[in-house]
C-alpha cells in the first residue's frame, strides 16, 4: 500500500492491542506524562473486551487473583473517577449454587480457599439462597453468597477508553494492524499497515493473538484460547436479582439493567485466530438454555434475541501473563487472564507501575515463568469440544 512507509511518530511507549488490558496499561502511562501510542487492528474493545458478559465476580477467580479481582471490581464500580466517564456498573450480590453433595463439597472448598485469600463469601443454605433469589428452582443444597459482586456494561469498553485515552493525550491508532515489530537495540520499529512507528518501549496486549505477538521478539507465550458463547433474552420485569452461577461452572446468568437476561457459562462455539469467533454452536446454545431453565424455571417463557461469541485467551496454568518479556529490554506482555475483563483495570495499572519502576501494591505474573498445565482444568473446560 505504501511505496515509502509513512512515519507515524516516535513514542516513549507503544501498546499493541486495544482491549481492556492494553487500554488499562496505556492510560496511566499517558497520564504520567509519557508519549504513548496505542495500536488497535479494529476498534478499541471490539474483541473479548467488548463481547464478554461483564460479570465482576471476585469470588470465582483463582485464589492468586482474588485481591486483583476485588480491586478490579472497585475500579469498575467507580469508573467515572478514573475514566472520567461512567461505563454503567451495578452492584448485585453474587450467588453460586450447588445441587448435590459433590457440588456442595467443592463449593465448600472453594469458599474456604477464597476467603483465606481475602474474599468475603458466606456459605448459605438452599433455603436462604431462595430467599435471596426467589425464582431459584428447588433442590439447591448449598450456596456461596457474596456482596462483593456485580456487573458492568462491558460492551461500552471501547467507548469509555477512547474518551479517557484522548483526554490523557495518548495517540490512539485505530484500524491499524501491527504486522511485526523489530527490536533495534532499544528502539522498537513497529511495522503497521498504515506505516512505521518507533518506540523506546513496547507493551504487547493482543488477547488471543498474543502468542504471535511475542514471537516478534523471539519469545513464545503458550497462549490457548476458548471460543466462549453468550446468549441474551428479550427484556422482562425483574426476574433475577443476583449474579448467579452454578458450582460446576457451566452456567452464569444475570439480568442486565435493561431487563434482558444474559446467559453464559463457557459454552464453546467455533472460531480461530485468522477469522475470529465466527460461528455459534446451536447445540451448545440449547444445552446452556436448558441449564438456565433448570436453575430459573421462568426463563422458559423468554425468547432469545441474540447469541454471540468471542475469543478468550488463557495460559495452561490459568494464570495471567503480566510483566517483562524475558531477556528483552523494554518489552512487556499483558493478557491471558480468566475473568480478565473484571481484573483488567487492576492488572493494567500494575503493569504501568512496573514499567515506571514504582512499587507494586500487588504481585504481577511473570510471563517467563515455567507454565505447567493445571492438573484440574477449570470447570468450564468440561464443555469444550462441544
Amino acid at each position: 500500500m505504501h511505496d515509502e512507509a509513512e512515519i507515524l511518530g516516535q513514542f516513549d511507549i507503544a501498546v499493541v492491542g486495544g482491549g481492556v488490558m492494553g487500554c488499562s496499561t496505556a492510560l496511566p502511562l499517558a497520564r504520567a506524562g509519557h508519549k504513548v501510542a496505542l495500536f488497535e487492528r479494529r476498534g478499541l474493545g471490539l474483541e473479548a473486551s467488548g463481547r464478554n458478559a461483564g460479570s465482576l465476580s471476585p469470588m470465582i477467580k483463582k485464589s492468586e487473583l482474588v485481591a486483583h479481582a476485588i480491586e478490579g471490581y472497585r475500579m469498575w464500580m467507580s469508573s467515572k473517577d478514573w475514566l472520567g466517564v461512567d461505563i454503567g456498573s451495578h452492584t448485585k450480590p453474587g450467588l453460586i449454587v450447588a445441587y448435590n453433595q459433590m457440588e456442595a463439597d467443592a463449593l465448600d472448598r472453594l469458599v474456604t480457599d477464597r476467603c483465606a485469600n481475602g474474599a468475603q463469601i458466606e456459605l448459605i443454605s438452599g433455603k436462604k439462597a431462595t430467599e435471596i433469589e426467589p425464582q431459584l428452582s428447588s433442590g439447591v443444597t448449598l450456596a456461596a453468597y457474596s456482596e462483593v459482586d456485580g456487573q458492568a456494561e462491558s460492551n461500552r469498553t471501547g467507548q469509555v477508553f477512547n474518551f479517557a485515552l484522548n483526554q490523557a493525550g495518548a495517540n490512539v491508532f485505530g484500524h491499524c494492524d501491527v504486522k511485526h515489530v523489530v527490536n533495534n537495540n532499544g528502539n522498537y520499529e513497529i511495522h503497521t499497515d498504515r506505516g512505521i512507528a518507533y518506540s523506546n518501549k513496547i507493551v504487547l496486549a493482543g488477547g488471543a493473538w498474543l502468542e504471535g505477538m511475542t514471537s516478534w521478539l523471539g519469545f513464545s507465550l503458550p497462549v490457548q484460547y476458548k471460543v466462549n458463547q453468550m446468549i441474551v433474552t428479550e427484556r422482562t420485569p425483574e426476574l433475577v436479582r443476583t449474579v448467579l452461577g452454578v458450582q460446576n461452572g457451566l452456567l452464569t446468568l444475570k439480568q442486565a439493567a435493561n431487563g434482558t437476561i444474559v446467559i453464559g457459562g463457557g459454552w464453546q462455539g467455533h472460531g480461530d485466530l485468522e477469522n475470529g469467533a465466527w460461528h455459534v454452536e446451536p447445540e451448545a446454545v440449547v444445552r446452556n438454555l436448558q441449564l438456565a431453565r433448570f436453575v430459573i424455571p421462568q426463563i422458559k417463557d423468554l425468547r432469545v434475541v441474540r447469541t454471540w461469541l468471542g475469543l478468550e485467551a488463557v495460559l495452561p496454568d490459568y494464570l495471567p501473563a503480566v510483566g517483562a518479556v524475558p531477556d528483552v529490554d523494554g518489552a512487556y506482555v499483558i493478557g491471558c487472564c480468566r475473568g480478565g475483563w473484571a481484573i483488567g483495570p487492576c492488572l493494567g495499572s500494575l503493569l504501568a507501575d512496573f514499567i515506571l519502576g514504582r512499587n507494586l501494591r500487588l504481585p504481577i505474573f511473570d510471563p517467563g515463568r515455567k507454565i505447567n498445565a493445571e492438573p484440574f482444568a477449570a470447570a468450564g473446560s468440561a464443555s469444550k469440544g462441544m
Partner: protein
Amino acid sequence: MFNPKDTLRIGDKFQRGNAVEFVFNGITVEAYEGESIATALLAANIVSTKFSVGGYPRGPVCFMGSCQECVVRINARKMLACQTKVAHGLVVEFDGPKI
C-alpha cells in the same frame, strides 16, 4: 363487536378471503382470511397489543417481523402478531407484565 366495514380497510376493489372472527383479550374481532393478526387488529382500531417492561402500551410498528413490538400470546406461546395469520376462533392474549 368491531365491524370491519367501518375500519381502515380500502374499498371493495380488493378480493378478500372469507370473513372470520377471532378473540383478542376477550374482544371479538372480525377479519378476513389471509390477514395477519396485527393488520386485523389495526383495522379494528386496536393499536396497543402489549405492555412494555416499564408498563407502557406498545403495539405493532413495522408489520414485517423486525421490531418485536407486536408480540402476543396464542395458546400460551409468544408469537409475532404481524407474522401470524388470523384464523376463525383463534384466541389471542396480550403479552407483558400485568398492570
